[in-house]
């Protein structure tokens, strides 16, 4: 009998989680993890936060010796450059061809680049190497300009501010993260940044970048000129679909289309993490999520399916973002922002905004109330019925609104 070989392409948390769960669930074939970065899998969330302000340590989902101890072969610094679905093999940047019985594509996303905005002093943030360079330059920068007030832009603004750097933050939308948070919560976030001294310029973007004698001069859409020692661009991301797409795999929502089991359109090829646009049975539609927790859980789910425990992925999506001392969290899917039910007060910066439809919680965004998000996450797909009054009533613990069935409480 020949040993089965499972190849994981991508060295992020989705691939690491798949490796861990393959072994946990008793898969005893070969596991090879091919990752373009030279570092073994690590968590990216700290890169815009603690890694910049504190010691530059990587948080790792698996200790470096775990791989050898569990017979997982790490091929780091190696890129998968071609996929042959019919021949079941991947071509590597080393010139080798690696055959597989099953393949998991967990190639993640890369930062979207702005043409003309590159070279020394211009930063994009995705990898530990990116964060290392940014960290080194932040140490001496007096003024930085950040293009885009998304998660990365806002978190870098908070970290740079903590380091004593003056920040100018440009955002074409009326408020930071407006599309994710809605206008009202976006405005709260804007106030938080402004109070800390960030010059936030909503409704304004940068049209040109010139190198002066002392750093950069940026021209804005309002015709202003703004100086900065360094520039961080955080304007979104591009899924790394090319390897799969060139091999004919179906693409949806910009990512590799997978069903609820993580299967792509090609036999024996799965996808997980930021790159995957997965059909979610609870929503009946494909969703691509770019958040840590979902990547970890999808990696685990694909591994379970490969190990023969066929289960659909139907977990709740959840994410957090830390800015200054504030903790933003969210789970589920938000509906219309103008009809949210508020628990707590925006002005207190301790609130949860619930999306409530027909007596059911669809999603919540919380600032500094992580307990609400945990409770809501448990309720999302469990039977429950609540009223707006109950949600808004802070004297009524959310736990009390939860259905009492044990099975429903654990995702």
């Amino acid at each position, binding site marked *: 009998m020949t040993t089965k070989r499972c190849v994981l392409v991508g060295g992020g948390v989705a691939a690491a989680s798949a490796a861990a769960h393959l072994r946990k669930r008793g898969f005893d074939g070969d596991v090879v993890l091919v990752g373009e970065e030279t570092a073994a899998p690590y968590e990216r969330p700290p890169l815009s936060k603690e890694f910049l302000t504190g010691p530059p340590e990587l948080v790792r989902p698996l200790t470096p010796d775990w791989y050898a101890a569990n017979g997982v072969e790490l091929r780091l610094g190696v890129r998968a450059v071609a996929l042959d679905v019919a021949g079941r093999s991947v071509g590597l940047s080393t010139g080798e061809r690696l055959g597989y019985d099953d393949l998991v594509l967990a190639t993640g996303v890369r930062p979207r680049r702005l043409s003309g905005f590159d070279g020394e002093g211009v930063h994009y943030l995705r990898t530990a190497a990116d964060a290392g360079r940014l960290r080194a330059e932040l140490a001496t920068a007096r003024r930085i300009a950040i293009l885009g007030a998304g998660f990365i832009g806002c978190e870098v603004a908070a970290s740079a501010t903590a380091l004593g750097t003056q920040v100018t933050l440009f955002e074409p939308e009326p408020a930071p993260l407006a599309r994710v948070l809605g206008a009202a919560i976006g405005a709260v976030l804007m106030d938080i940044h402004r109070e800390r001294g960030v010059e936030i310029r909503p409704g304004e973007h940068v049209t040109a970048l010139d190198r002066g004698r002392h750093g950069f001069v940026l021209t804005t859409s309002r015709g202003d000129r703004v100086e900065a020692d360094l520039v961080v661009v955080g304007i979104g991301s591009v899924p790394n679909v090319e390897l799969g797409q060139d091999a004919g795999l179906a693409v949806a929502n910009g990512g590799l289309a997978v069903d609820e089991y993580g299967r792509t359109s090609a036999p024996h090829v799965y996808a997980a993490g930021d790159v995957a646009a997965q059909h979610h049975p609870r929503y009946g539609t494909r969703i691509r999520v770019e958040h840590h927790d979902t990547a970890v859980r999808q990696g685990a789910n694909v591994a379970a399916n490969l190990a023969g425990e066929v289960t659909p992925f139907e977990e709740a999506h959840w994410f957090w973002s830390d800015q200054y001392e504030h*903790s933003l969290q969210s789970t589920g899917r938000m509906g219309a922002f103008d009809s949210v039910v508020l628990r707590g007060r925006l002005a207190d910066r301790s609130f949860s905004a619930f999306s409530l439809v027909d007596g059911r919680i669809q999603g919540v965004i919380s600032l500094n109330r992580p307990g609400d998000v945990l409770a809501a996450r448990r309720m999302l797909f469990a039977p429950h019925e609540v009223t707006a009054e109950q949600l808004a009533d802070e004297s009524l613990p959310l736990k009390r609104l939860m259905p009492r069935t044990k099975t429903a409480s654990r995702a």
Partner: protein
Amino acid sequence: MTGQWQEAMQLDELWEGEMAGVEVGGEKVLLMNIDGDVRAYRNRCPHQAWALDEGDFDGETLTCSRHLWVFDARSGSGVNPDNCRLTSFPCRVDEDGTIRVDVG
């Protein structure tokens, strides 16, 4: 080096299925009452050191509120992910209901 049993809390202040963050001998300690059994852990998540008493305890498992790591309350071992564990401290309950912890 042997530590000493220091007073942490009274058992009647810690109901079954509840947890509390306390300070014992300069150490931040998490006390949990699991069906009448009391456990004491360092009140710092093994992931990124956030305080665990802000999390959610359902009587059996503890979920850290920061990034949702889940631990078995009785054993302190990680449930998800399972390659980690809480740091535990020796803990006992005296006849008079005083919870004592040895933080070393």
